[in-house]
């Protein structure tokens, strides 16, 4: 059983209107517990719609969403509980910071969950630590933080609710390479320590290759591929035909094979390529 399972999900925007768009078309998918799963697909492929299914922000037109084996829409009045269990960090979450201090901003979610004072303080401290924020940042206004720090404060606000599934839409967008690596490493460490199931939506093939256990590819509202990064990226032709790019290093490996140097097609990081070429330790 997967942590979250989607069974034959279909969703249409603007049903009956001239602009009717089928965003999800009979999607069946299982997200394994305790893994980092990457969701890729070009703009309009249905990724964001799918993500909003996971915590009940959207209700499927047909099909079922199971969280821990239970249909989340069985009791629509309890959908709020699902949203506490499945934490969603939207794109550019720093635009949603609003409170006077970083501390109270992070505490907003736990407070709404009805946690007691003591637990809130504890949850805020732990979440801030996970997100890499220091004690001195907590008393500051979130608007006095740098871009990368704001992003991490927003992330802490969701982590503080202690979700068992964490969904992140483009968590590293707009950050410089160093900050990208730092936030993705934080997320990976958090996942390892807490055992949370993490789902990352991203356009960056390089990031997906580096940080995910499983990669799911979407196109035209359907799931077209699922597998480990090595499995998915070795099917570069299919990815390219779906309007996606593959890491530059994957292209190098393909070109090398044509030139008689075969290091395999399942190459997706520079470390891997160097290892196969030079026999170095990965």
């Amino acid at each position, binding site marked *: 059983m997967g942590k979250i399972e989607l069974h034959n999900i279909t969703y249409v925007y603007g049903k009956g209107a001239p602009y009717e768009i089928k965003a999800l078309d009979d999607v069946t998918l299982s997200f394994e517990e305790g893994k980092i799963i990457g969701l890729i697909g*070009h*703009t309009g492929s249905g990724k964001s719609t799918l993500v909003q299914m996971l915590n009940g922000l959207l209700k499927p037109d047909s099909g079922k969403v199971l969280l821990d084996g239970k249909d989340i829409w069985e009791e629509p009045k309890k959908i709020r509980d699902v949203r506490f269990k499945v934490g969603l960090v939207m794109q*550019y979450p720093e635009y949603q910071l609003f409170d006077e201090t970083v501390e109270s901003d992070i505490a907003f979610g736990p407070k709404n969950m009805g946690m007691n004072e003591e637990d809130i303080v504890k949850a805020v401290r732990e979440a801030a630590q996970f997100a890499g924020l220091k004690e001195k940042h907590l008393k500051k206004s979130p608007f006095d933080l*740098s*871009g*990368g720090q704001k992003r991490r404060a927003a992330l802490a606000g969701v982590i503080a609710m202690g979700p068992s599934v964490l969904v992140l839409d483009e968590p590293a*967008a*707009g*950050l*410089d*390479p*160093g*900050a990208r690596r730092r936030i993705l490493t934080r997320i990976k460490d958090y996942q390892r320590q807490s055992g949370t199931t993490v789902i990352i939506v991203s*356009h960056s093939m*390089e990031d997906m290759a580096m940080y995910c256990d499983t990669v799911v590819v979407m196109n035209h509202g359907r799931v077209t591929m699922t597998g480990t990064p090595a499995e998915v990226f070795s099917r570069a032709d299919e990815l390219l035909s779906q*309007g*996606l*790019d593959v*890491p*530059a*290093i994957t*292209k*190098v490996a*393909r*070109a*090398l094979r*044509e*030139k*008689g*140097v075969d290091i395999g097609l399942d190459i997706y990081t*520079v470390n891997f*390529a*160097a290892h196969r*070429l*030079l026999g*170095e330790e990965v």
Partner: protein
Amino acid sequence: MSAIIKAEHLSFAYPGDGDTPAVPVLHDVSFEIEEGSFVAVLGHNGCGKSTLAKLLCMILEPDEGILYINGKDMTSEDITDEDIYDARRRVGMVFQNPDNQLVATIVEEDVAFGCENLGIPSEKIRKRVDEALDTVGMRKYARHATHRLSGGQKQRIAIAGVLAMRRKCIIFDESTAMLDPGGRKEVMDTICRLNREEGITVIHITHYMNEATLADRVIVMNDGRIIMDGTPGQVFSCADKLWEAGLDVPQTTELLWRMKEAGYNVRLDIFDPEECASEIAKAIAEKR
């Protein structure tokens, strides 16, 4: 060729306020930008790239140093408002967030906005707007609503607005950062075409190393100073220095670097995956 922008020993600090001390951002920055060139500026967040861009557009004034725009000293005592307007008419800017820089609800009205403020007669504006939309490949969207466009299309409209004002030099401040790969390609194709076909001087601030490889020249900044300045080949060959500055190098360069470290005879200034593979295959054959 002449320099459209020349900076000599520019320094800048954001002024302090009460208890908060001033924040120094740029230290002794000097460079020249040749007319018609395509320069990429790299550096991690907070290294001073955007501040530099604002100095070049004269949104901010340097604390020290001299800035020449088209040969005229913009920091001299007897500079008039008219001179500043004139310089601003040469250098335009496109920002990061596509949703923050469109002002009108209809595409062609947005493109015309800058020209209207300059008091240009309306028949001339009509012509300029049409030309600008042609250049960015958005003519058929002229009467579309701006809010329905994709991110890449919105950025191209913002570029058209700057073009309609006939700017000779455009600074792109991370204009591709918020776009998806498709949108990013649209904007990069447009930027390259403006530079090569229209002769517009381009200063492109970015975090994407593969975009920087398209430029004639790459300037790397770290902690308010220029630490590297050269062709993409020269700059990316020094992978260790870039890593130290918190930046990345293209994957091709990284792999070639590792090959070289292992004793293979390879060039480092290659960005195309095909060429990179050829270089590696050649070096492996040589070694055997």
